[in-house]
């Protein structure tokens, strides 16, 4: 283990991560107000990003066997149903997560 080299790797990852987050601000943040198209994308994009993030959480799902996909889909169904019914996000997330944990630990062991 080489301390200086490891520290260099950590620092590099930290700087590069920050640069990806800084990019849109460096590009569009200096002018008084950004181009209308940029404002438009900024306003509309979150709905699409959240949808992509939902898919991101399911990226390891396989349809080869029941335990490889059933817990995720049942869990999401529970979260969605609870949320549409009660609109209480702590209840939806809490109950959905407990349900998923029971499914992976007990039901689809």
């Amino acid at each position, binding site marked *: 283990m080489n301390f200086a080299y490891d520290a260099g790797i950590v620092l590099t990852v930290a700087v590069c991560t920050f640069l990806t987050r800084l990019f*849109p601000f460096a590009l569009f943040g200096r002018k008084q107000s950004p181009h209308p198209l940029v404002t438009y994308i900024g306003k509309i994009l979150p709905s*699409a990003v959240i949808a*992509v993030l939902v898919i991101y959480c399911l*990226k390891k799902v396989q349809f080869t066997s029941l335990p490889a996909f059933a817990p995720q889909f049942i869990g999401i169904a529970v979260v969605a149903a609870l949320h549409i019914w009660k609109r209480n996000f702590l209840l939806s997330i809490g109950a959905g997560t407990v349900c998923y944990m029971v499914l992976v630990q007990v039901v689809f062991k």
Partner: protein
Amino acid sequence: MKKLIQFIFIRTLPVLFAFLFLGIAFGLLLQRAGYNVVWTFLISTFVYAGSMQFVLIPFLGTDMSIFTVILMTLSINSRHIFYGLSFIEKFKRMGKAYPYMIFALTDETYSLLCSTKIPDDLDEKKVFFGIALFTHIYWISGSVIGSLLGELITFDTTGIEFAMTALFVVIFIEQWLTAQNHIPAVAGLLCGIVSLLIFGPGSFILPALIASIVIILAARNIIQKKDGAII
């Protein structure tokens, strides 16, 4: 002040569960790789990027070229390029907190900032800063706990990471129920699925986001007509 902290705490609670669990997992893995709590603390504080930190662990202790590290980091975190687009004006108005808000714009913070409706009696800037700071502290705390105590945790926590999925699903539904136009959400879902099938789990996010932007731009007239005067 009490109401502000209470509001932020309740809004960020799902991320607390997810970050404690994921953070503990990270701290434990880093500890097993031979790096103590000081490393864990510094990495979680200054890198603050969930998936990237897990990728980072096997880099340590090797003589991997810095160029490779740069390429890996930029490609894994490339999705962040788009997150700031929604906050250019809002972050700029935050004064001294501006650089910190940019630094702390993770997937989870982004989702919370996009979905939080600020009550009339609370200051948006303070709520935004609080959400970013609280989630950052959760992440650091989780990883430090994992580093120090990870080996002592004996109860079965398998599946607790689902809190993250549930959070995104809930935000998705909230946006769906309040949006007048479902094109962006459907575009995101379809682009995500198609891109996952084509590019695989490791590299599907960036193509999915670019395709979503293309669709959003192409459907601009329809989306704006239905949503009223967006601009």
